[in-house]
């Protein structure tokens, strides 16, 4: 599709005169191509606009009569700019507290429960923690069973209370259980919810109050389109989350939502999900994501 963004940019440039320096005049067509490419990659409309303006400013006056083509030059500028925007380097979790409490939140079906299992495995095996998973979804049919199956797969115990329909009480009891039994890490899975569902958003705020988490991770599907900004903003307004997780990147989506989320809430993306299995977890690398969004 637009693996050939660079070619397109070269072509856009060729039809224009005065290739010596990048000028206002010869840059317009090119910016259109860039904007379309970003929108095709699901970067938010406003973010794409702001970004192309930024790139334009950086590009203006640059001399293109060097060994590289204008397309190459522009994609390099964009790649650098995107990488910086998305946080420069990978951001780690703060695991200094005992127990460290991590709250997982997000829209329906984003991949929260799967990620909870993966994170437990990762922190246990790679960071030497002793995790407890907490089954805080009392709504979705078989949500507890799902987390328990995953807990078994990664060999991490799950705190659940099948009698209770109160996610706040369950989360609190889960943290208490961890303290009592000497787990130094608690991961609280929660039900999927829409950002405009007042009752459920109040509920997750209350879960936060009750458990005082050290990390709150907003889990979002990498295939999300223009709505990513609304959702990220609404969850951030309510929870002031500490990081985002981008799931299902084993697909072929460009993942422009990553850029939108970062630019609207300015929180780091900490992990990516790359499959359904429990080891399909990676730390987030802004530079790789930048190349992906640009299709390079």
């Amino acid at each position, binding site marked *: 599709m637009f693996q050939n963004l660079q070619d397109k940019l070269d072509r856009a440039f060729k039809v224009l005169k005065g290739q010596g320096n990048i000028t206002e005049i010869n840059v317009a067509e090119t910016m259109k191509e860039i904007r*379309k490419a970003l*929108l*095709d*990659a*699901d970067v*938010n*409309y406003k973010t794409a606009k702001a970004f192309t303006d930024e790139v334009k400013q950086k590009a203006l006056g640059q001399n293109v009569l060097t060994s590289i083509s204008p397309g190459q030059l522009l994609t390099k500028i964009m790649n650098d700019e995107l990488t910086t925007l998305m946080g420069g380097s990978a951001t780690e979790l703060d695991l200094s507290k005992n127990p460290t409490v991590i709250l997982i939140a997000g*829209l*329906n*079906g*984003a*991949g929260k*429960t*799967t990620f909870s*299992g993966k994170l437990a495995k990762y922190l246990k095996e790679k960071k030497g923690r002793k995790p407890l998973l907490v089954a805080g979804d009392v*709504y*979705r*049919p*078989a*949500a507890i*069973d*799902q*987390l*328990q*199956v*995953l807990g078994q*797969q990664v060999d991490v115990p799950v705190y659940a209370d099948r009698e209770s329909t109160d996610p706040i009480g369950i989360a609190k009891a889960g943290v208490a259980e961890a303290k009592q039994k000497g787990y130094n890490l608690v991961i609280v899975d929660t039900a999927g919810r*829409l*950002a*405009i569902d007042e009752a459920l958003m109040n509920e997750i705020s209350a879960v936060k109050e009750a458990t005082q988490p050290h990390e709150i991770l907003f889990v979002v*599907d990498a*295939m*999300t*389109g*223009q*709505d*990513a900004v*609304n*959702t990220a903003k609404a969850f951030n307004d309510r929870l002031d989350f500490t990081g985002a997780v981008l799931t*299902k990147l*084993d*697909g*072929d*989506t*460009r993942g*422009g*939502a990553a850029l939108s989320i970062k630019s609207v809430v300015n929180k780091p993306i900490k992990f990516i999900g790359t499959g*359904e299995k429990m080891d399909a977890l990676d730390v987030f690398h802004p530079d790789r994501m930048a190349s992906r969004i640009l299709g390079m």
Partner: protein
Amino acid sequence: VGKSTVDDEVLDDLEEVLVTSDVGVTTTLKIIERIQARVARDKYVSTSELHSILREEIQALLAENNSADFEHFEYGEHKPYVIMVVGVNGVGKTTTIGKLAHQLKEAGNSVVLGAADTFRAAAVDQIKLWGERVGVRVVAQAMGSDPASVAYDTVKSAVANGDDVAIIDTAGRLHNKVALMNELTKIKQVMQKVVPGAPHEILLVLDASTGQNAIEQCKQFTQATDVNALALTKLDGTAKGGVVIGISDQFKIPVKYIGVGEKIGDLQLFNKKEFVDSLFK
């Protein structure tokens, strides 16, 4: 005061509305071109008229390539009418099946569900709970068993039991995974050994919050299974689901159902007019 041409500012606004609804640049440009053509033809057009023209053009675009809106939760002539439900991970397949089973049962049909997602953790438990909730039978095997065999059992059981409708759940899978897509083709073919022509409906479930990737999903799932109906879920949120406009333009597959919540009653038949109106809310 009317204008004979549409000024750039108005078009920019339209573009923003469409693109932020996930309509996609290509389809947005196509719609805008249609409007420009119409404005050139009809001459005087005010900004307010322009908005109703826009709605009409999008509805027309949806209608050109689709049948009329469905009026009932109907299942056609076949008995059992077999529905196979496919889609990427987490879009709402299993929930849609629960909700659809409820609608069909309310309409007086006897329905059986097939738990052919034997892969995702507790998927069988989840659909069994939906079966209990709705009050319909669920045909299932152990986790990890062959999904094609579950589908086969389900259709066979529907025939034996004289059921009107059989709905087969499948595991979520990303469309770029060749082995998993081939598995779907196999699940589909196995059912034809019991009921020639089955599955009669292959329902691709799309999540309204998905962006342009939904187009590729549609392409790949259609290639593997001849998708002939779409369901658009999670429209109760702020996402508009505009990508289905481009999809129905390219693939000529009707959107049949929409999901508007997690509860049993939260499934509706797609209505073009209401859908287009919601883009501008």
